[in-house]
């Protein structure tokens, strides 16, 4: 089977762009990805685009064609919505379309505009990734959902707020050299612990910020890349997706994310790798506890053992398997619908050796992207490898 190549990838600066329209944000990322790929726009067969809260933020549905137009394309263009895993789901269908030979060149991407509506409305918008009737109307917020998971994890496996604080400190440190990151600021464990509480046991510094931004990448078939002499050494070699009950209370275990584990099993089998082969990963750390659950689900740690990874230095850029060299959602920022493809952008740059933190894993040839929607009721996993 042909493994799609990443021919060009780009993100906007993540942060606060309250006055920039979504179409302008996506145009910036999409055009930069096209330019870097060397692929003529006429060769693009389709756009696979992730966005979560466009109706709320911009009163704009039907964003697929709008975003295709913004990058000068008139092609089949579909918006994917899977909460925070929206563009992870877009990548997956793009990969499948190339693999099955229907399309040779596709643009994948995502965009979210969030800061223009303010923190309260953004909190409200994010909450609707949960079950509206039985969770949101009962008082659930997105941080609260992850707080419930954190409490359950502590009860089942042990762990402290201080363990979680080390995840935040690590990811902020990683982001210091990422000029596209929203938060380029070193923080200490004490600052995390002393920050105002959002939903106990999670405080302000356990949570990712609210972010505007866009991401895009040009994927091509292996054959197209060879025929056109593209410089595209990074291939998508594995894809997986799985689902779970939408409402957290309907699951058997609140201290694990089985959808992610299911997606991992599929993606690793697809790529023919196992967890031992993974050199580094970008995982969905919307909250510090989410990174702990993620590194367990991708097989780097047994259940209950991931909590100490950051504190022990194992997942820092100096550790054996660095996690979130970009700074993660925590420091890089989390423009929801753009996050899945932003992970792809980071991993591609690290594997190509052009990322500011690439020196952490100079010999890396396998990177994994873990993208979760809601409390991981949706999860996508992608495996990226360097090919000759």
């Amino acid at each position: 089977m042909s493994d799609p190549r990443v021919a060009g990838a780009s993100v906007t600066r993540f942060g606060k762009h309250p006055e920039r329209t979504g179409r302008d944000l996506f145009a910036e990322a999409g055009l930069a990805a096209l330019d870097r790929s060397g692929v003529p726009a006429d060769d693009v067969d389709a756009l696979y685009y992730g966005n979560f809260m466009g109706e709320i933020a911009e009163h704009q549905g039907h964003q697929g064609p709008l975003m295709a137009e913004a990058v000068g394309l008139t092609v089949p263009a579909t918006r994917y919505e899977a909460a925070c895993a929206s563009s992870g789901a877009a990548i997956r269908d793009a990969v499948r379309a190339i693999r099955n030979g229907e399309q040779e060149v596709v643009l994948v991407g995502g965009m979210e505009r969030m800061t223009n509506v303010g923190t309260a409305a953004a909190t409200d918008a994010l909450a609707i990734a949960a079950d509206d009737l039985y969770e949101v109307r009962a008082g659930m917020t997105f941080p609260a959902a992850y707080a419930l998971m954190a409490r359950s994890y502590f009860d089942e496996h042990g762990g402290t707020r201080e363990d979680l604080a080390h995840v935040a400190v690590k990811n902020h440190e990683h982001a210091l050299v990422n000029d596209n990151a929203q938060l380029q600021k070193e923080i200490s464990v004490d600052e995390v612990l002393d920050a105002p509480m959002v939903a106990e046991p999670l405080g302000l510094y356990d949570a990712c910020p609210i972010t505007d931004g866009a991401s895009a990448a040009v994927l091509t078939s292996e054959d197209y890349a060879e025929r056109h002499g593209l410089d595209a050494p990074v291939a998508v070699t594995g894809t997986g997706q799985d689902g779970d009950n939408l409402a957290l209370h309907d699951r058997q275990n609140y201290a694990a994310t089985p959808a992610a584990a299911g997606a991992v099993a599929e993606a690793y089998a697809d790529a023919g790798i196992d967890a031992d082969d993974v050199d580094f990963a970008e995982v969905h750390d919307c909250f510090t506890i989410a990174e702990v659950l993620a590194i367990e689900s991708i097989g780097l740690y047994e259940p209950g053992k991931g909590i100490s990874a950051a504190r022990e230095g194992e997942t820092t850029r100096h550790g054996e398997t660095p996690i979130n060299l970009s700074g993660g959602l925590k420091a890089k920022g989390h423009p929801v619908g753009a996050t899945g493809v932003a992970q792809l952008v980071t991993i591609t740059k690290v594997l190509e050796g052009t990322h500011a933190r690439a020196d952490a894993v100079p010999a890396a040839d396998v990177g994994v992207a873990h993208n979760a929607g809601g409390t991981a009721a949706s999860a996508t996993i992608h495996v990226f490898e360097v090919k000759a």
Partner: protein
Amino acid sequence: MSERVRNGAYDDWLDAIGDDEGYYVECENGHGWLPPRRVCPDCGSRELSEEPLPEAGEVATHSTVHVPTPQFEDDAPYVIAVAHFGPASITGMVRGADPEDVEIGTVVGVEVGERATTGDRAVVFRPR
């Protein structure tokens, strides 16, 4: 957030909780859910029946929410919890207890309360 059109099965369920006649939906294999359900997500069974909700539930996990959605602005801080009532699990706000006293394992009853912010109905747990 007053609504002219009811969310039938959900509002019926709240009515029943308010009348102290709460129920859940159970499949033939004993998996419990909140309505409406036409099929059990666990086992695929379509043989579902309404069963009376146990009077007492047990808190499975909880959090004190300091940053709410706008619809709960005047309610915060409040404790949100998931409680197991037999095979069914429910998310609700815990009232009538100091947040520090709510623990995993705390035994609660369920009732219908009002959001302080909007006056809308909300699921409330109260320690028993």
